[in-house]
């Protein structure tokens, strides 16, 4: 008995725009990728759920429900787990919300509970890119004058689930 292609590390990167109607096809693609990697409907449903909640949050909160912004979902098949990095360029979170259930009649606030329940680990990273320009002028007092500016940032939510 030989098994081919099980130890290999695969990466598929998916990109959608921040429109609610793009979340469903993205979710179906992620489910299929997880089913391919594990053969388990249960596992695939868990990851599918977590990704949909996370991407809904990006659209609603990071991009304030505005269409036209990039959401990048990088699906990584590793030796004993899947790792999914969800990147946006919108509003960053200052802290991760606690994964607790709201009152039974609340009409929001279950997203992080679901993400937390369906995965083994998750973490959130804000990356700030900056560009420094230094102008060197001849005949100036200190030799140069400096200008510094932050250019952009990205938010990366990493989701991990072991096989």
């Amino acid at each position: 008995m030989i098994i081919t292609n099980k130890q290999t590390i695969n990466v598929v990167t998916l990109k959608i725009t921040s429109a609610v109607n793009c979340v469903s096809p993205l979710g179906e693609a992620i489910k299929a990728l997880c089913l391919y990697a594990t053969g388990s409907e249960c596992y695939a449903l868990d990851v599918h759920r977590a990704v949909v909640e996370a991407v809904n949050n990006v659209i609603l909160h990071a991009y304030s429900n505005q269409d036209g912004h990039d959401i990048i979902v990088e699906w990584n098949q590793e030796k004993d787990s899947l790792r999914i990095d969800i990147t946006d360029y919108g509003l960053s979170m200052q802290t991760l919300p606690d994964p607790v259930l709201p009152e039974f009649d609340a009409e929001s606030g279950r997203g992080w509970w679901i993400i937390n329940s369906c995965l083994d680990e998750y973490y959130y990273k804000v990356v700030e890119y900056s560009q420094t320009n230094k102008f060197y002028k001849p005949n100036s007092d200190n030799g140069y004058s400096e200008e510094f500016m932050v250019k952009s940032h990205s938010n990366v939510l990493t989701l991990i689930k072991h096989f």
Partner: protein
Amino acid sequence: MILLEQKHNDINIVELSGRFAMADCSDVRERLKSLIDEGQGKLVIDMAKVSFIDSSACAVLISAFKGMQLKSGRLVLVTSSAVQSLIELTRLHTIFEISPSQVTALSAFDER
């Protein structure tokens, strides 16, 4: 997703199929609201053919549940396994009335 409406005597039945997710919420919320406003306080939401549901769709169900409570009406849900497991994960099965099939959901209204 597809939304089908039926009536059985004074009971409104809404049959959903496919994915029930954020993109579908405003349409479904609106339909349910007008059925609750205009109906006889008896509603079945049949999600036996729903393949996926997210937390925003759960919010639509909660909103329908609250609308029915205000009218002293009754809402019965029929769930697929994907719907049932998310409802249980979010502990909403403790407040929703859930029936195994549309037939049992309809007969539940006869019982009391």
